[in-house]
């Protein structure tokens, strides 16, 4: 029997076909050049091809496919934001995610868990109630719940009132989910490549050639290509690329660290977030606890990890789950996050005629991958950002019209 299994495994027909084609030669020109082969860029390529019939598209990626922040996030999907503009935008993303495995014909392991944002102070309870009301007004399922109901959803959570930050209430968001982040990018890449989009890995943009108010060519380490339109989707390197285009951005690059524990039997169904304790935790389908905290305390272009991060994260984690003190960490990593002053993204048109921006994704980019890809594709195809992106335009800063999501976008501020 073991030999039979081995023989079966080695059969030529058992080999999995390569679904993302190898990097082709660069053509002299493309209708659209997408800089950045992460989830956002690949999703935009997919929707350009499927919705708008634009397939003469090159996706340029300086490393390997989806190896930047798409590989480094904690894969949480939710729409329980604070501003109506934000709720509407992220809600469209959640809806797209719910049907994405079917749409792509590729399993993204979408797992609906419910999402609990804990409140440890009266002020936090007030904010959670505010978010619940805004959410409900926008048709998003969120509710303020109290320890009796929290206990039913997360029996292992320490709900003792005899701790430094007792849990008073929580914002319960049943649609909150996790998904396999790599699969999202791969699914979009396969779908885009099947329709003729070229994906160029190991292709680093070294310069942008500007004539008048247009970018006419993109210079790379593999040669120069002429371009009709350009979409920038390079989280973590947004400022460096925007500098080449002569644009100024309201972005600081700050590392965001995360880690996973050794696998445990399933015990934690919902995703748990605490802004006051600066932690979030979920249990992956493999049983690993995926944990993250606030961004690093100062800007840095680096993906190094620090002891300070783990010490503060674990100190707070153990207040919520004291029994985790015996559990070992398995991996840790960091990504470079584009932090904006109002904790909202920067998307849409730029002062240049044919250059479009998808940046400022801070610590909240993965959950927006489908909606961002779809709406940025629309922006590139029509030359005009749709209404749903209006609140996130680059010019909102000079108009003093920010979209403040500080209370809902991430933890630790």
């Amino acid at each position: 029997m073991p030999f039979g299994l081995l023989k079966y495994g080695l059969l030529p027909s058992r080999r999995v076909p390569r679904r993302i084609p190898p990097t082709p030669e660069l053509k002299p020109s493309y209708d659209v050049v997408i800089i950045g082969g992460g989830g956002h860029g690949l999703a935009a390529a997919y929707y350009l091809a499927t919705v708008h019939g634009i397939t003469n598209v090159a996706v340029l990626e300086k490393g390997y496919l989806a190896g930047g922040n798409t590989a480094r996030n904690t894969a949480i999907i939710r729409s329980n934001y604070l501003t109506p503009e934000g709720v509407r935008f992220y809600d469209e993303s959640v809806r797209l995610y719910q049907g994405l495995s079917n749409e792509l014909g590729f399993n993204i392991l979408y797992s609906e868990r419910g999402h609990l944002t804990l409140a440890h102070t009266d002020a936090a309870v007030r904010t959670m109630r505010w978010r619940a009301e805004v959410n409900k007004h926008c048709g998003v399922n969120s509710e303020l719940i109290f320890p009796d109901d929290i206990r039913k959803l997360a029996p292992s959570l320490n709900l003792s009132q005899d701790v430094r930050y007792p849990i008073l209430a929580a914002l319960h968001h049943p649609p909150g989910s996790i998904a396999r982040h790599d699969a999202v990018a791969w699914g979009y890449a396969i779908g885009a490549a099947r329709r003729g989009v070229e994906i160029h890995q190991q292709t680093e943009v070294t310069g942008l050639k500007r004539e008048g108010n247009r970018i006419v060519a993109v210079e790379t380490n593999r040669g120069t290509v002429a371009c009709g339109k350009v979409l920038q989707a390079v989280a973590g390197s947004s400022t460096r690329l925007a500098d080449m285009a002569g644009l100024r951005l309201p972005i600081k690059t700050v590392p965001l660290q995360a880690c996973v524990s050794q696998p445990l039997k399933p015990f934690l169904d919902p995703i748990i977030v605490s802004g006051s304790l600066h932690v979030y935790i979920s249990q992956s389908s493999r049983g690993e606890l995926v944990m993250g905290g606030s961004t690093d305390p100062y800007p840095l272009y680096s993906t190094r990890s620090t002891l300070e991060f783990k010490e503060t994260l674990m100190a707070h984690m153990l207040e919520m789950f004291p029994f985790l003190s015996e559990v070992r960490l398995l991996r840790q990593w960091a990504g470079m996050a584009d932090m904006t002053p109002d904790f909202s993204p920067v998307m849409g048109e730029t002062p240049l005629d044919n250059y479009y921006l998808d940046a400022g994704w801070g610590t909240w980019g993965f959950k927006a991958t489908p909606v961002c890809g779809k709406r940025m594709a629309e922006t590139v195809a029509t030359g005009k950002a749709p209404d749903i992106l209006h609140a996130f335009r680059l010019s909102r800063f000079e108009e003093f019209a920010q979209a403040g999501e500080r209370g809902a976008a991430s933890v630790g501020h």
Partner: protein
Amino acid sequence: MKTMTCPLNGVRNISEFVCGGEVRAMPDPATGSDAEWADYVFMENNKAGVVREWWCHTPTSFWFIAERDTVTDEILRTYPAGEVFTARRDFASKEGGS
């Protein structure tokens, strides 16, 4: 554990400090345009390389200037703000203003 040298207090744990952002020239309050203020308040140079920043040692509230490399995560030099700001700056005053 990473450390930083405070010009007032000597070598301290990095967790005792907060970063106050890049040292930049403020627009003149009386004459600066909205666009200048928006740029000053919101836009960032966000340079990859050596930057000059305001830092504060929070236990003593002492503000000083640090030069550090945002790629290698090295702190190159820290010094009192008086090294850079050597003269009093008087902003233009609005007519009739106080």
